[in-house]
């Protein structure tokens, strides 16, 4: 136990360099709402055309999860709070909020005279109804997992809502900024399910004009949006191109103004193309190898460490991400997270790995199936690369690829050895309670480390910042010790916009887009 810790402190210099990278990035990202370059005065008008490759199957804020569905609801709905580019919660529908001393009761003060798109005024009843819907298991709301600590939500008066928590939790304002925790009118929640799916009625800067899930969804400016002077655009059109080649070709021909997500393979070409500006943002999004603790052979930590050492992480970044990402060291928190500690380098050393395997009782290596769903394609690519790299270390991996739903039905959270793919969370607590704590909503590695659970719970309720940093550092050391996941790299979020599109940014969380502050400088 001591030996691994010493190895941990030896590389302090790297830690410093890592921090620099994170800070540097943060500086570039200005706060939302102030536009990219302050000196130009934004022009009003024009239609922004966004190309995306996955279908907007539904606009039901509660349980949607499609990559193209998030920008739509970011424009249509508003939450109590909204995550800024600095990863901190900013006022949205709630003008201000206050918490009691031990962070168990929060009061949110709503903006006055805000109306939904259909004209009905926003009141605290709508907020209460929304959070009750989120907590109702039958609704299958995605935000439920980050709000498990909320005991009661009540309307104190027409414009104030009180949250009473079962345990003190300082990050509640971040939790309510969850992308799926947008405020829906009580009337809509009571109404038919289809309207929630196809006729969104939010308070956001844009409202729905037409929705054809197989072709194009068009949103137009909401004239009585509660922030004056925005949005600048007349309308936003989300065009669906399921074929990546057709999508990039359409963008480059100027037919489309924004390419929502750029493929790694295309980034270089799109960046250099005339009239196109590619944008790359470091993010905590990762592909991870899940190894269940309760099944052979990964119950033995030496096997886990051996596999960790038989993956050349830099090559993975170069080959699969075309360099658009950073090697990770099995720590679930990427440098952008608050309280992140620096984790030791894991060298690619198949000889040592082979020796470690032998020590663990597998002198002639391990033959095992690695399951990878075919959506998104990156899971399969990483699996194939790992199979190749781990061969010399004695791992004979057979990659089993399958349609996404078969994976979800038969292997996800049950399989012994498979690839998973997770987006970045706003807080360390969000990341830990999503995957690693014993009672995490999507717990899949059967780590069940009581010490880790305790640290996370304690950290959740300590308002003091430095003490919290100490606890989270402790938690990350446990992760590095037991390697519940192998996380080979963090994948940057890539997007692109044409010349003349001003203010198009993308957030590492890849869930918020601030399209209200985008404007077109078309002469």
């Amino acid at each position: 136990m001591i030996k691994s810790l010493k190895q941990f402190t030896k590389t302090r210099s790297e830690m410093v360099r890592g921090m620099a990278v994170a800070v540097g990035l943060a500086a570039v990202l200005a706060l939302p709402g102030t536009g990219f370059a302050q000196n130009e005065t934004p022009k009003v008008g024009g239609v922004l055309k966004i190309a995306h490759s996955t279908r907007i199957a539904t606009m039901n804020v509660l349980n949607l999860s499609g990559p193209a569905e998030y920008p739509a609801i970011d424009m249509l709905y508003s939450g109590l709070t909204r995550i800024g580019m600095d990863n901190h919660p900013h006022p949205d529908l709630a003008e201000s909020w206050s918490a009691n001393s031990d962070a168990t009761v929060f009061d949110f003060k709503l903006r006055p005279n805000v109306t939904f798109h259909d004209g009905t005024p926003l009141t605290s009843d709508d907020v209460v109804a929304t959070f009750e819907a989120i907590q109702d298991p039958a609704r299958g709301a995605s935000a439920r997992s980050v709000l498990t600590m909320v005991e009661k939500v009540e309307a104190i008066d027409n414009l104030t809502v009180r949250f009473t928590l079962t345990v003190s939790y300082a990050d509640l304002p971040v939790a309510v900024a969850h992308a799926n925790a947008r405020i829906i009118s009580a009337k809509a929640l009571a109404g038919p399910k289809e309207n929630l799916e196809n006729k969104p009625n939010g308070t956001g800067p844009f409202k729905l004009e037409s929705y054809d899930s197989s072709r194009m969804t068009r949103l137009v400016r909401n004239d009585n949006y509660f922030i004056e002077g925005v949005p600048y655009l007349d309308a936003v059109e989300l065009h669906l191109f399921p074929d990546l080649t057709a999508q990039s070709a359409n963008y480059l021909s100027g037919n489309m103004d924004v390419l929502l997500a750029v493929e790694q393979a295309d980034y270089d070409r799109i960046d250099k193309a005339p009239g196109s500006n590619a944008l790359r943002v470091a993010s905590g999004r990762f592909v991870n190898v899940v190894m269940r603790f309760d099944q052979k052979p990964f119950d033995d930590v030496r096997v886990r460490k051996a596999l960790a050492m038989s993956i050349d992480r830099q090559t993975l970044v170069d080959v699969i991400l075309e360099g658009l990402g950073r090697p990770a060291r099995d720590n679930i928190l990427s440098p952008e997270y608050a309280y992140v500690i620096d984790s030791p380098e894991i060298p690619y050393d198949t000889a040592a790995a082979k020796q470690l395997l032998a020590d663990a009782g597998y002198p002639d290596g391990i033959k095992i199936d690695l399951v990878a769903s075919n959506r998104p394609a990156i899971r399969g690519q990483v699996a194939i690369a790992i199979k190749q790299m781990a061969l010399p270390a004695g791992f004979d991996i057979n990659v089993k690829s399958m349609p996404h739903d078969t994976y979800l039905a038969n292997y996800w959270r049950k399989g012994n050895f498979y690839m998973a793919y997770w987006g970045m969370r706003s807080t360390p607590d969000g990341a830990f309670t999503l995957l690693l704590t014993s009672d995490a909503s999507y717990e899949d590695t059967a780590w069940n480390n009581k010490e880790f659970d305790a640290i996370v719970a304690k950290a959740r309720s300590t308002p003091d910042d430095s003490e919290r940093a100490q606890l989270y550092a402790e938690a990350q050391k446990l992760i590095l010790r037991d390697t519940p996941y192998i996380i080979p790299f963090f994948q940057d979020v890539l997007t692109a916009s044409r010349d003349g599109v001003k203010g198009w940014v993308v957030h590492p969380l890849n869930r918020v887009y601030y399209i209200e502050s985008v404007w077109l400088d078309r002469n």
Partner: protein
Amino acid sequence: MSDFVRHPAGVAGAILLTIIALAVLFGPLVAPYDPQAFHTTVRLQGPSADHWLGTDQFGRDLLSRLLFGARSTIAFGVGATMISVIAGSLIGVTAGVVGGWIDSVIMRGLDGMLAVPDLLFVLLIVTMLGAGTGEAMLAVSIAFTPGMARISRSSVLSIRTREYVLAAVARGESQRYIILSEVIPNAIGPIIVEGTIRVSFAIMIGATLGFLGMGAQPPSTEWGLMVSEARQFMYRSPWVVAVPGLAIAVAAMGFNLFGDALRDAFDPRRSR
């Protein structure tokens, strides 16, 4: 068979098929590299001295992947057609020989299956069985069986009215002898011809399934899958898409040409 050789399409088809057969049989032995081995330093390169057909996005040697892939692609096409020929002719012959209401019921059933376009039918079955080379092959053979059944039935019906069969019936030969020695040996010709031509369709459908992600799954070297995986990189190196795409075309064309020549050899009236 002598006119077969002078048949230009036949000769071209035969040449293409021999190349393909060599690739299927000796591909893996001859391949210069391990098809899965990464050569990350020379990713997405065009043809070069040590990589004759260039490399793909992981730097894997395209020529080796093609040679290894021949088996899964061509064997898939031939295998699927073989199953459908056997199953189809069994159904077709029974329908043709038994006749009566059984024949009508079988025929109506086949019409039902033929009413659904081939690719759609295959997609339905593959989604039912789950994606994968084996499942895809089974799906294609199920989809092709009705067509083959219909051809073998019509072939049997036309043979049954021939006078040498009537002579055998008049002689009082056993039903088994009539079918096995008189009808089937003569009905086989058209069935084989149709089978050969269908192999090219089977290969193309197999490749399309690979392309749609419902056929062979990574890291298979099936040519359709290779095209599908490489499409994102084609602007950087068109070879990545062109090489497997052309290989599919060559294989399909080979079977088509050979099949046409076979058809003309069997049915001289339709020759050029």
